[in-house]
């Protein structure tokens, strides 16, 4: 009996080995850790189980900058993966690398896979398309900045955080003062300072971050985020910091832990923080639109995305590309999109997936998960709010954050800090332009 089943097992293994040989392996390098990594593997497994010609092999390569660096090194050595997950600030670098990447619209056309860029949320599709509307990379995990409020802390200060959470920055400042007076030690904190208070702030008020449609229409773009409106915003934050009503927590997502623990009453950070806050927070909280300045015409516009997209690397066989195209087609199916959206907190990237999630009743239970999509689709995106594309923006964002820190610390005035950030940022843009002639 045992021998018989052993023989059967061996036969089965042999069979599995032969099918594995016939399969085309497709390497997918990504940066999804923890819970998100599990969900990503689930997607790959589902695709692999659904057909037997291709096998998607997801490989975790560290943080976003790490996996991008690894892929660049691998490309130079001639063994890059077929699919690479690149964070949004790396978009311009990847785009400029013509020959190293295969644009997604071309990949889909060449392999006759159905592909309709219009089925994606416009704010997402626009971010990853060239100026002719051709989609260059495949949007995968997208997030945006939203405004979190600790309702218990608001109630303690005699405010109604659920219905009357501050809608404008003016109301925000007034509420911050009341929260402080009520004994709140940390009133407000923010994750991703540049992404929130420069990039999304600009889009939300329909003002440019840089010329040439925020860099989307040409490499000769220059930064313009030192207008009086931007200065007003940063000066407001610096002033709050001085009064002890704004606690700076760092350049990445460190602020999210300060909100989840109940230490800070208000937070602006990524939608991606929701899963964690849901698990940790021992208080009532809610998610709202970002505040805006109500004297700015057209505000609020729509916010812009963060997160990452999938790039297809060059130099592979047509068979591999066929498999990648099929996989992308699989990923854009509403049911798979909804699985990813509900499981991770990232946005659904197609309208169909959004409608499907809505019908499932998920938002009735978790209204906070829908705020980001409403904010992102608040109005049709303009040239100022469809995204940004600045060369070497990993460095550029760093420069902005360094200067913001100088302003929050009180070492420089908001105007001085922003002028310096624009000046230094433009030097980086010129270097990028020179390198990509």
């Amino acid at each position, binding site marked *: 009996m045992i021998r018989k089943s052993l023989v059967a097992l061996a036969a089965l293994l042999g069979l599995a080995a032969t099918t594995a040989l016939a399969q085309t392996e497709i390497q997918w390098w990504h940066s999804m850790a923890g819970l998100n990594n599990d969900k990503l593997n689930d997607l790959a497994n589902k695709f692999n189980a659904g057909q037997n010609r291709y096998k998607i092999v997801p490989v975790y390569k560290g943080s976003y900058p790490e996996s991008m660096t690894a892929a660049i090194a691998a490309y130079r050595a001639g063994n890059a993966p077929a699919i690479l997950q690149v964070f949004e600030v790396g978009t311009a670098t990847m785009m400029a690398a013509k020959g190293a990447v295969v644009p997604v619209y071309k990949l889909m056309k060449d392999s006759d896979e159905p592909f309709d860029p219009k089925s994606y949320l416009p704010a997402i599709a626009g971010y990853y398309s060239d100026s002719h509307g051709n989609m260059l990379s495949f949007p995968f995990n997208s997030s945006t900045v939203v405004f979190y409020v600790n309702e218990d802390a608001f109630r303690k200060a005699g405010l109604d955080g659920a219905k009357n959470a501050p809608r404008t920055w003016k109301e925000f400042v007034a509420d911050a003062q009341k929260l402080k007076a009520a004994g709140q030690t940390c009133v407000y904190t923010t994750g991703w300072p540049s992404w929130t208070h420069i990039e999304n702030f600009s889009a939300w008020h329909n003002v440019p971050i840089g010329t040439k449609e925020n860099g989307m229409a040409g490499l000769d773009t220059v930064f313009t985020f030192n207008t009086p409106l931007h200065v007003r915003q940063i000066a407001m934050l610096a002033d709050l910091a001085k009064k002890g009503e704004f606690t700076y927590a760092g*350049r990445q997502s460190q602020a999210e*832990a300060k909100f989840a623990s109940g230490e800070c009453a208000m937070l602006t950070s990524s939608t991606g923080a929701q899963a964690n806050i849901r698990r940790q927070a021992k208080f009532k909280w809610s998610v709202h639109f970002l505040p805006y300045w109500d004297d700015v015409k057209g505000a609020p516009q729509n916010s812009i995305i963060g997160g990452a997209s999938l790039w297809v690397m060059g130099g592979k066989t047509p068979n591999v590309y066929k498999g990648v195209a099929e996989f992308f087609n699989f990923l854009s199916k509403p049911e798979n999109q909804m699985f990813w959206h509900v499981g991770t907190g990232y946005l659904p990237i197609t309208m169909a997936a959004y409608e499907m999630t809505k019908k499932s009743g998920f938002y009735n239970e978790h209204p906070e998960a829908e705020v980001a999509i409403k904010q992102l689709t608040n109005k049709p995106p303009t040239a100022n709010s469809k995204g940004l594309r600045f060369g*070497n923006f990993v460095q550029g964002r760093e420069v902005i954050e360094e200067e913001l820190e100088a302003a929050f610390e009180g070492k420089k005035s908001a105007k001085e800090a922003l002028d310096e950030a624009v000046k230094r940022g433009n030097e980086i843009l010129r270097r990028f332009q*020179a390198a990509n002639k």
Partner: protein
Amino acid sequence: MEKRVVFKSAWLPYALVAPQIIVTIVFFFWPAIEAVYYSFLVQDPFGLSSQFVWFQNFKDLFDDSHYLASFRVTAVFSLLVAFLGMSIALLLATMADHVIRGSLGYKTLLIWPYAVAPAIAGVLWAFLFSPSIGIVTFYLLKAGINWNWVINENQAMLLVVMAAAYKQVSYNFLFFLAGLQSIPKSMIEAAAIDGATPMRRFWTIVFPLISPTTFFLLVVNIVYAFFDTFGVIDATTQGGPGEATKILVYKVYYDGVRAADLGSSSAQSVILMFVVIALTVVQFRFVERKVQY
């Protein structure tokens, strides 16, 4: 008459030193030459297009006030690390030198931290002093000190100096202890008989006698702070807040690896190469010759 072993074979001596030469060429000269070559290029990250720009990368660097500021940060950081690491080590070594019972145990324990990798040391200190979750932060807040190195430059500098010096204390301790033990006991006893206080004996006899060790350690510590503290910075402040702890070697890494600007990063490496050469010359020329007792 000279007593030297002379190889008869023409090729054997070359064959014997070849492995060492090859290792040096492959792992030191080749990358160094490559770095010099890249420092004259402006290149996109994928290496698809590149321009030969002569000294443009160097010119850009020296026109950039932030690069020059990084020199100042590095100097302050290195001197603080060397001073803190050496003074604590000297204090501990003097104490350990006097311990009679269980001295081996003390010495072994004091050497332990040297086995900790810089990145691990950085993570340990970052956790202890983390503004959001650190245990030390918690007690500092209770004591009324607002500890937040994410935005306070001086606190950030203090943190990285402590983390970097902590690792170096053991190394310095070892050398200081050896130096102290080589001082003839008779000299100190003679001074004691003459009525010199322990303090006086230390500053007039012990300290001058260990000055060669001190100078050697000074150079070694500065080189350490310049080049080996990358892990500490990366695990804690990552150069911030602002650019308060962005030392030169961290900037090389950041611009080259994270920002994929190989030209500028290589130019910075070349500049650092000259700094190392200068430090080495100082060590050989002045330290090893002039410090005599």
